[in-house]
């Protein structure tokens, strides 16, 4: 199961055991970034090694969400400049979309 966490200011919204932040894991892992800009995830496909923490940053005026298509991970609504981080441990392909603008899609490939 992927380990995931929110960065501030979203941490307060999250509940449940999976939401517990793990600074150790994040600090030890590789990091990668996806920018949400003009209703696009950039890059649309990101290839990372297992253990990488991917951070999405919303650069739009509109809020967006990051939701894995089968619900493996999901952010709350990200306002401008809000971020959402997800650490990928298991190899595989993770397709995700914005639940507010479902035409926006992206993929994280872990291998």
């Amino acid at each position: 199961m992927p380990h995931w966490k929110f960065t501030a200011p979203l941490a307060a919204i999250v509940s449940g055991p999976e939401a517990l932040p793990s600074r150790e894991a994040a600090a030890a892992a590789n990091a990668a970034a996806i920018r949400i800009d003009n209703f696009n995830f950039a890059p649309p496909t990101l290839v990372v090694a297992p253990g990488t923490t991917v951070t999405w940053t919303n650069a739009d005026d509109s809020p967006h969400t990051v939701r894995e298509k089968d619900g493996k991970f999901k952010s709350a609504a990200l306002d401008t400049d809000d971020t959402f981080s997800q650490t990928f441990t298991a190899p595989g392909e993770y397709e995700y979309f914005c639940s507010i603008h479902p035409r926006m899609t992206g993929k994280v490939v872990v291998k």
Partner: protein
Amino acid sequence: MADHDDKDLSGAANLNRRGLLKCMAWAGTGLLWTVSGGVPRSLGLLGDAVAAEPQANGFTFLQISDSHVGFDKPANPNALGTFQEAIAKVNAMPTQPAFVIHTGDITHLSKDKEFDDAAEAMKALKQKVYTIPGEHDVADADNGKLYLDRYGKGTKGKGWYSFDAGGVHFIALINVFNFEPGFKSAGLAKLGDEQLEWMEKDVKGLSASTPIVVFAHLPLWTVYQEWGWGTEDAPRALGYLKRFGSVTVLNGHIHQIQQKVEGNVSFYTARSTAFPQPAPGTAPAPGPMKVPAEQLHSVIGVRTVNYVRGKSPLAIIESPLGA
């Protein structure tokens, strides 16, 4: 889905195929029209004074939409403020609407505080407020729990319901939970099988002469597929309404007035009380559109609908906040 002789009535005045409905949505002070024997008929452009005339034997209701409480970007630094203004405008109407319908995007980010602020603002309304969620109201990490905890009581499924008022049957549909991600599809909204089955049963016992008003957040016709402004399985819902003489569909989501008549169905989208969005295809993406501050109040507002029994006119009046 519009594959026969309907006409898109967006923009300036056009006539539908029966030559009866005039669209004057952008003229600002009002669009008043009637439904007689199931046929929509425009009464022409009217100002607030006419709209306020007491309607014997009928009632008015008000549509308010896309308040986006919590939004504070340049397109409108105070969306709560303009929502409160809209509510004050309703309270100042000489003839009070029987009830208010909020067609979604009450909040901007589905935050508790935004729901609190919106609820506080709506407390100033004297009448009952019927709500449905927009996708901005179910963007919390718990898939709409915050909205449903507040507004889901007494509703079916994920918040849908129906009610009768003054001989009109109102159906509140929810199309913000079943988005088809755009991996292989158009990324349009969906009503979903469970809700559609409920709706089929809901209208089954009604006489075909019952006027129907359907409201849902995203348009129930495809306004602009490229921006996901449509509902994939809406044709099935509209199929259940084919036998009715008069069907009016009220939507929000796109923050501008678009109208269309197709057979017995008249579709309307409403302005936002917060900020406008670009017309379909006129920008790289949808989103808040910044207009000069002095113009903002002319592009946001509320909608009043008059229904008079017997003569059966259903009259829709658009009131920009700046009017």
